[in-house]
Structure formats: C-alpha cells, structure tokens
C-alpha cells in the first residue's frame, strides 16, 4: 500500500534543545497513527515538521511530495492550542476556512458531524471549552482532506463529545482518510489507532499496533488489593507471584482472572482484611509508563515506588 506520509531521520533543534532526534515513521491510506508521549517529547514539533510549518532536517513527504509543495486541499490540520477569531460564530468560522479552499463539504453538514448544529450561531468565545475544540476540529474537516492531522483534538472535550468524535474519526478512516493524531489520552490512542508511536525526548521509542505494544511492553496483569497492607504483608501470603506494596495497596502481578479466588483464600488464611479488589489487564498506559519513565501510575503512584518493593525486580 502506498505511503501517504513518510518521515525519515527527522531532526529539529531549538538552540541547544533537541526537539526531534532522528524520527522515522510512515502511514498508509486509511491508517490512524497516534503519537503519544510526555509534554515536551516532540509530538507537536513532529506534527509541524510533517505539515511543513517548521523546517526540519531529514526527509518528509506527503503524498510523495514535500509538505510545502503538496496540494493543500488534501490536508486538514488542527494545530495544538489553536484559537480562531473569538467573535465569529462557529458557522462563520467554518465558512471562513471553507472560503480558503477549492472544494469543500457543506458547512452545516460538518457542524452536524461535530455535534454543533444547535450552537452554530454562537460566538466562539461564548462556547464551552469542548464546543470550542469541536469547532476547531470542524475547521480541519471542512476541506474533506485525504490526510487529517490533529494535535490533541479532544483536549477539553467531555467524555460524550470525545466518544462522538472518535466515531467520526473512525468513519473517516474507513473512508480512506489517513489520520495522524497526537493525544495524552491512552484510551483514545488504544481505541482509535492502528499503530501508536511513542515519543520521548525527541526520539520515537516505540511504534507498533497498540496490542503489540501492550504485549511487548505492558507487563503482567495486576490484582490490586486496597487495604492497610505494609511490606511485611508480602511474607504472610503464600502465593507464587510477584507482589508489591505501596500506600497500603497490595499489588499481585500475573494473576489470571480464574485464580483470583485462590488469592482471596490466601488472604483469608493469612488473616488479612481488605477494602476492595481490582483486576487490571496491562494497557497502553502501562506501556507509556514503562517506556517513557515518566514515573506516575494510574492511581498517582510513583513508578519508582512500584519497582522498589519486596515483590522482586520488575
């Protein structure tokens, strides 16, 4: 399949700060490629390099051409922290961007797609944060692009709006639109992306299908048992698995769902009480934490604390 987007050994520095350090990736027609990574990892710089809005070393091609030479009708961009004219209505804003292209979709149809039909005549500054972001997404959709580049499109959008936008993007991908999306929401990347690229310190540290990333880097499943546990607890439990304790929570790794009953029996046998018990499969967030070393877990636990407990050498 032909590559819509190609980046080879892309490098960009700002003074002594290296924003991109030899990033290579590609995307084919209809593929959804998600970029995740900590703040400052280089996601936005990579988006700018790919869209030709910043100069970078290396090779970047869209549809076989340099980004600045490609037919601009084929690209739809939502920049990060994009703020359009604040005293124009959502309809006026989308119509304004429509007026810049040769061929566009119907303005009202695009507004309906992003769920703004009822507020189309409200000035942008009077829309809620989520409605504002959806208006911005609409400006990227109006030219019916073949390549849609969205830099954190769902930031500030409520869960229902996010779901609706995901469905819209999935529909576009089904129609053959290539979508490059950056996000801080791992759930979003896992749900939408055919492949996920993980950036850290300007380098692409992983690029694969979400399930492959999870299998390779996500680690074991976790049985999280909340109570008043401490490090001596680990020695009281006769169960053949790796365990850690942090802030009163006992975590047992690699427990299969059908084995949870056995763990409960062991807790009872050891005379240990607990408040709640949660089983969790590894997911993209675990991959993110493992590969970026950002050190904050799902429950706000420092990652370093998880690795430094009695359970072993995870």
């Amino acid at each position, binding site marked *: 399949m032909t590559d819509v987007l190609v980046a080879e050994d892309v490098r960009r520095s*700002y003074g002594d700060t290296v924003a991109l350090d030899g990033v290579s990736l590609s995307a084919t027609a209809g593929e959804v490629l998600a970029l995740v990574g900590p703040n400052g990892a280089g996601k936005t710089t990579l988006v*700018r390099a790919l*869209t*030709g*809005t*910043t100069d970078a070393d290396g090779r970047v091609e869209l549809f076989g051409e340099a980004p600045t030479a490609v037919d*601009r*009708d084929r*690209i*739809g*961009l*939502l*920049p*990060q*922290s*994009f*703020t*359009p*004219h*604040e*005293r*124009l209505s959502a309809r*006026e*804003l989308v*119509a*304004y*961007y*429509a*007026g*810049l*292209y*040769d061929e566009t979709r119907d303005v009202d149809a695009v507004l309906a797609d992003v769920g703004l039909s009822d507020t189309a005549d409200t*000035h942008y500054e009077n829309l809620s944060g989520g409605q504002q972001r959806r208006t911005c997404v609409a*400006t990227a959709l109006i*030219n019916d692009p073949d390549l849609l*580049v969205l830099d954190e499109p769902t930031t500030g959008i409520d869960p229902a709006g996010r779901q609706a936008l995901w469905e819209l993007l999935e529909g576009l991908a089904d129609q053959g639109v290539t979508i490059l999306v950056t996000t801080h929401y791992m759930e979003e990347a896992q749900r939408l992306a055919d492949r996920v690229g993980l950036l850290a310190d300007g380098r692409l540290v992983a690029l694969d299908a979400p399930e492959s990333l999870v299998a390779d880097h996500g680690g074991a499943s976790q049985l999280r048992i909340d109570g008043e546990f401490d490090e001596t607890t680990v020695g009281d439990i006769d169960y053949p698995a790796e365990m850690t304790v942090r802030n009163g929570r006992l975590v047992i790794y690699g427990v299969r769902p059908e084995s949870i009953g056995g763990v409960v029996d062991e807790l009872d046998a050891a005379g240990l009480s607990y408040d709640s018990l949660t089983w969790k499969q590894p997911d993209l967030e675990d991959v993110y934490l493992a590969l970026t070393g950002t050190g904050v877990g799902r429950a706000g636990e420092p990652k370093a604390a998880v690795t430094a407990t009695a359970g072993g050498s995870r």
Partner: protein
Amino acid sequence: MSRLGRLQSESRAASRAFLRRRTAVFFTFFFPLIIVVIFGVLVQTRPGGGGLFTREPAYYVPGYLAVVVLFTPLSRVGSEVARHRDGNRFEKLATTPLTRPEWLLAQTLVNTVIIGLAGLILLGLMVVLTGADIVFSPLLVPFVVLGVALFCGVGAMLGSLASSQDGVISASNGIALPLLFLSETFVPPELLPAWFPTWLSPLTYFSRGVRAVSTSGGEVLVPLAVLSVCAVVSFAVGATLLPRTD
C-alpha cells in the same frame, strides 16, 4: 477557490472580527475626532503668528490624515499578527491555499475601508470645525491607499518581530510618534534644523502628496512614485516576515 475568493473570505472574517470589537471600533473613529478637536479647535491655527500651528488650516490636512493612516494600520495589523501567532492561526493557515501576501492584502483592504471612512470623517470635521479650505480631489484616494499599504506592511513586520501584543503596541507607538512629527505633517520643515533629513521618512511623501492634492499646489507625481515604491517594498517585506509557527 480563486484568489479573489480567498481574499473575500479572509477580508470578511477580518472585518467581522474588527467590527465586533466595539472598543476598537469606537476608538478608531473617535481618535480622529479628538485629534481635530484638540489641535484644530482648542489649540487652533494662527496664520502669521509664532509657534507650531502658524499655517492656514488646510496645511495640516496631511497631518490629521496621517494620524489614521499611520497609527491605525500599525497597531491593528501588528496586533492581529500577534493574535494570529498566539492562537496558532498562522500554523493553520500555512496548510491552506491562502498565501501570506494574500493574508496581508486582505488585512490591507479591510484597513483601507476603515481608514477611508475615518479619513472622510476627519476631513469633514476639519471643514466644519476649523473652516479649512480643502480640495476633495480623487487623487487623495491613491495616497491614502498607498499609505495604508505601507504601514500595514510595517505593522506586519512589527507583529512578526515583536514577541508579544504588548510589544507590538509599544513598538508601533515608538515608531509612529516620531514619524508623525518629523515628516512635514504638523511641523513645517523650516522649524526643524536645516540638516534634518525629513526626506528619509516615507510619511514625508504622503504629506507632500496629500498637501499638493488637497491645496491644488505642488508636485504630486514624485511623492506618489516614492510612496508607491515604499508601499510595495514594505508590503513585500511584511508578508515575507509573517510567521508560520516559530
């Protein structure tokens, strides 16, 4: 979409955005009024007497017009560039068919209309309040259009080079105020030192040309030609400097 269509879309958005900022609209049109009231009514011109305002009222037409032709594009375009940059709008526009010269041309068109209206109000007030004997020649139009284009270009440069909207305002005031008084507008050249090079200021050619046209006396073509060259260069440099992202 043709270039004309893109210009229409950008101009429509820019004019709506301006007209809905009521404070900006009010002061754009109130500014000429207070300038004429202060200098034309309170200070008054005293032909034959000593001091700054010693010429007939019509002599000061270029000065009053320069107030809007100079200040409004500098501050409006400069601020608009800063707003666009802060909101990442240029990054978005860089991926649309709209080019940077087209963007600046659209801003120039909107400013020309706004300043044209403000200029008409100003000239009307001069006639009514100061009794100025002004020739309303159609040749005033190219001078105003070229002056607006010139300072829209300078405003684009300031907006692109200044790091913030506050910086744009400070820089535009720092440039506009000296230019206003050292370009043969309100201050006749004989009140300045003989060595002072008023010919270096592009606004001088606006003043000379507008004065020649509005009083039916003096050279018109040379000021028009120099102002045209300055406007083209300024517009080209301003459009080139407009940012994409960083």
